[in-house]
Structure formats: C-alpha cells, structure tokens
C-alpha cells in the first residue's frame, strides 16, 4: 500500500509502516470515525448556539486524526484519560455518541446522568476515564492508574492526553520523573495545537519542541504529524507496544491545530484568517479521503454517501437528546459518597 504524507512532514524516530498492515475495513472504519467526530462536533456547536448545551464547551474539530489513531492502537482493557476537549476522544474509545450528546444536554440518559456535561465525559466500562477540568490534573492521576496496572500485573497500559498549555504545570514534571523511576506503562500524549486558550505556546514556553523535555527524564519520545491519520496510528501503535512490553513511559507530541476557538465563547482573535486557512489546508479528513481513493480502497461517491448517512445520524442524535428526560432531583446527593 502506498504511504503518503502529503500533509506536511515532521521528523520522526518511530518505526514507520505499522499502518500499512491495517486491513481495508479498518481503514474505512477509521475514516468513518473521523467523519462522525467532525459531524458530532458541528452538531454540538449548533446546539450550543441554540442554548441546548451550556457551560464551557470545547470542540475537537481539526484534531480527529489523533483520537482515531490513538484508539486504534489500544486494547479494550487499556485506559484512556484526558482533559476537557473530549467528546471526540470518548467517541473514538467507543462511548456511544448518543450518551455523549445526552450528557451535553444535561439529561438523565447521559453517560454520567447529567452530572458532568461537556468537560466530564466518563465511561469506565469502555476504558474512557474522562473528563478532567483542571489543566494538567489528569496526568499524575493517569500515572496512578498505570501504577495500579503494573502493581496488579494486568498487562494493560494507560494513555493520557494533555494540551500544550498543560506542559508547564509542575505536576506534569513530577509525574514524568515518577513514571520513569517506577517504570510505569503509560503513554503521555501532548496534543500541541499551539495554543492554550488565547496564548501562543512560544510566548510562554522554553520547552519547544515539547517532546524533548522527556530527555531529562530518560523517557522515550517522539513527535508526529497529528493531522495525518497514518502517521498518528504508526506513532501510537509503536508507543503502546513499547509501554506494554517494557513497562516504560513514552512521550508523544502530536503536532496539530484546532480549527475553532478555544471554547464556544472564544472568538479567536489571536489568529489571523490567513493563518487559520493555512491550518485548515492540513485538514486530516479530506487528506485521508484522498489517500483512500488513491489507493483504490473506496470511491469519492461512496465517501460522500457515508457523509450524508453520518449527518442524518447526527440530526437524529440531536432530536433524541432534546427528547430525553431531565435527571431527578435525588441525583443531587446520590453519589457524594459511596453508599453502603
């Protein structure tokens, strides 16, 4: 199979070509997953505009190649943990889109029954451990999960996502040291979309390129083009296998861009139109579509039909979320402490 990286190139030190082993059906499924995530987030944005979704709401549009590549590299019993830009990551991990949308609407049928909302999506049975709102807090917590995996010899690994804005939190540096000293089976992933809220990374960081900070902690590291699904899968597959086999941490830097504002309330004035257009030229979805058609895996017509199907599904998902019941008042106190 022809491997293209027409979407820009970055240096990489991981073994290439894992994606070449993927069967056609898997490639198509991965494409569909990206499209579903994109359309889900667009639907979310519309519902937010109508006041159906409230609070802070961060869309993943532009970063889909990362969540899909990552999820494809994990086993069902592995753990994925993240911050608050998570609707799409949860979908990639197999959390039903309906349960996520219901959660965004604050309904009883949401994946955490309306208690969490956009920033706190969890589905532990699916290996998706949320859903954390304080920048960086999930990183040491995830290392704790990896600690338990090692302690109990489960053979599982933990993968934890955080943003470029999070890398200056002291707790992350403490965690890198602990993970290295204790040999924890964890894949740290920084999704470097170049902004923490409205602040460009370069204005507040001495760490660039971010992945090189792992050198100080003797942790294997590399970067990849997070706008390219095949590169993404290659990087994650290598990292997950390495962490599992050697019980060692790995640190990946996914270079990417988010196409929308930081959250629904951010007009994004810190980026010029031209800059955004240039970033959108690397959109992972049309890029991968062209690749699939080039390789003869599918046709343009089939992909267009797929897109229509997904759009119709999202419309239905919105309607069902709207019709779903509100939570009962008793939920307020139900989970404050574990009941006897």
């Amino acid at each position: 199979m022809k491997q293209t990286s027409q979407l820009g190139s970055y240096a990489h030190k991981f073994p290439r070509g894992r994606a070449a082993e993927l069967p056609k059906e898997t490639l198509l499924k991965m494409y569909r997953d990206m499209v579903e995530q994109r359309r889900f987030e667009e639907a979310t944005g519309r519902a937010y505009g109508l006041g159906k979704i409230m609070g802070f709401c961060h869309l993943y549009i532009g970063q889909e190649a990362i969540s899909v590549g990552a999820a494809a590299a994990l086993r069902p019993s592995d753990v994925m943990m993240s911050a608050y830009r998570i609707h799409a990551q949860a979908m990639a991990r197999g959390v039903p889109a309906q349960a996520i949308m219901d959660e965004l609407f604050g309904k009883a049928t949401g994946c955490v029954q309306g208690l969490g909302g956009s920033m706190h999506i969890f589905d532990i049975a699916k290996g998706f451990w949320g859903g954390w709102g304080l920048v960086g807090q999930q990183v040491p917590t995830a290392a704790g999960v990896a600690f338990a995996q090692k302690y109990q010899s489960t053979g599982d690994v933990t993968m934890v996502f955080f943003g470029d804005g999070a890398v200056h939190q002291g707790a992350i540096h403490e965690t890198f040291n602990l993970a290295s000293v204790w040999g924890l089976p964890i894949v740290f992933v920084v999704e470097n979309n170049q902004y923490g809220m409205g602040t460009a990374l370069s204005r507040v960081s001495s760490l660039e390129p971010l992945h090189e900070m792992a050198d100080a902690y003797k942790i294997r590291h590399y970067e990849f083009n997070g706008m390219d699904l095949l590169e993404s899968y290659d990087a994650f597959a290598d990292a997950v296998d390495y962490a599992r086999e050697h019980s060692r941490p790995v640190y990946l830097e996914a270079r990417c861009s988010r196409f929308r504002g930081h959250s629904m309330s951010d007009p994004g004035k810190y980026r010029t139109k031209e800059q955004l257009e240039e970033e959108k030229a690397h959109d992972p979805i049309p890029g991968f579509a062209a690749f699939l058609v080039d390789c003869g895996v599918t046709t343009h017509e089939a992909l267009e039909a797929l897109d229509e199907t997904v759009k119709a599904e999202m419309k239905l998902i919105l309607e069902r979320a709207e019709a779903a019941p509100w939570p009962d008042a008793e939920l307020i106190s139900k989970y404050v402490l574990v009941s006897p």
Partner: protein
Amino acid sequence: MAQLLFRDALNQAMSEEMERDSRVYLLGEEVAQYDGAYKVSQGMLARFGEKRVIDTPIAELGFVAVAVGSALAGLRPIIEVMTYNFAILSLDAIINTAAKAHQMTAGQLSCPIVLRGATGAGGALAAQHSQSLESQYTHIPGLICVSPSTPADAKGLLKSAIRDPNPVIFFEHEALYSAKGEVPDGEHLVPIGKGDIKREGSDVTIIAWSRQMKQLIEHADAWSEELGLDIELVDPRTLRPLDMDLILASVKKTGRVVIVEEGFQFNHVGAEIAYRIQRDGFDLLDAPVERVTNIDVPMPYSPALEKLVLPNADRIKAAIRAVCYK
C-alpha cells in the same frame, strides 16, 4: 457618578493604582494580549506595556509563588487567577508563604499581594468550575479576604486592597462581571473591614455578599412586601476581618438573622458569622440564626439540578419565615 460594569470598575481600580505606584504590576493567564479571560484587564497591556502586564504560562503554583517572592522583595503584584478553582494549585504559596512571612520573620518581611479572580457558580460549569472556596482563605490568619457585590464596592475595595500592606484575597463572582452599577467619580476608596447596609429594614437582618447580595438587593422590596417583613440587607464586603460592629448593630435592631451565601455549607464563612453573632449577641436574638447555602454537594452540570443546589428564592424566603416564626 458613572454607570460602570463590574469588570470595568475593577479595571479602573487596577489602572489608577498602577498609575499611582510603579511597584504595582499585573500578572496571570491571558491577562495581557487576550485582555483577560473575563476581559477585566482590557486595554491594560497597551496602556502599561509588557513589563507591568504579564501573561503567564498555565502554572499556578509557579507564577503565584514567584509573585509572592517579588512582594517580599518590595513589589506589589496583582495576581489574576482566572478562577479560584485553579488557585487551589497555588495554595502553598498563599498559605505557607504569603500568610506566614510577616509573623515568621517577626515583622522583617511583609507580603503585599492581591490575589484576585472569579469565584462561584457561573452557570452549568459543573463540579470543578463552580466552587466558592472563600473559607479556604478566611480560615487562614495572615490573610485578608474581600468579596464585593457592586461595581462601586469592587472599585473602592480593590484600590484599598492594592494599597494594603498585607496579602489580600479578592473574590469576584463570575456572574457579576457584566453587572452594572453607579461608581463615584474621582478617587473612590472603600475601607477594608467595613461592611455596608445595602437596605435599611426593621424586622429581619439578611447577611450576604457578592452575587447573593446583588440578587437580594433586586428582590428585597418585593419580598418585604410579600412577606410583610421589612428586610435589612447587611453586606460585610470584607469576609476577614469581619465588621462585627455593623452586624451586631443590625441584629440589635431586628433580633432575627438569615445568612445567605454560595458555597458548601460545612465550615463556610456564614458558620463563623453565625457563631460570632451568638457569642457576642446572644441576648439580641429572638430566634436561632438560619443559613441558606448551596446544598452540600459537588455541583451537578445539568441546569435542571444546578438551580436546586444554589440558594434560591424559595429557600431564602423559607428561612426568613423560619426566623420570624411566620
């Protein structure tokens, strides 16, 4: 008198004090180029330059602790923490350094910082972003805690806070930034430690601050009429030290007290106020003091549940009736 938004009143306070004192500088996440996450520092980078209006990385412990150190060395930082949920990460610098430095050095050092940012429930922000953590700070000797309810108080108190030689923790309710109110022209200072009667009344004292006081001001006339009880509204404005003289004078008049506050019930500021009222004003009371707080749970996201958790009209009116035996 000018009509100002709460956020603009804060902006004026900072800008005026920065004009007045070159030791004052502002730092925090998004405060400079982005004009602040809540647009409180709008235009300040342009006006004062990068030396004095500083964007930080997301590293609350680091930048707060550095600012604290700079205060020990004679500067007067205003530290914006975006919200107090995030300031949790910086508590070591505040509790173990800022609050201790003066006493531990027998007065050789002092720590004139202002820590300021958003508190409270902004609307469907769920468990981690809706907290009122004032008592984390009012618990600590060595800190001054301030929480204004109006743009005028916000401006006057922030100016006093910046001039104060002690560490001042300044709470701005997230839902107040867009509130409008009259602010006196010219130099306007509100003293720290002095409360304010926001409405005179004779039958029942309601003690509240911040957003809860704003809502009470809006409803007090109607509720006084509806309940047939003349409500007095007492805003302590400073949560530590408390203006107990003002509070007790009001209790002496009414004999009945309801404290309305956002935040978890157990151990929050109102508990201390209630204790002090019964200790120093037991003979003045005609009924036990009532408190209306959040229901004592992590905040649920769903708007259907959030409105039940926060203090609401039904619960406040029930408490008023209870202390008046009506």
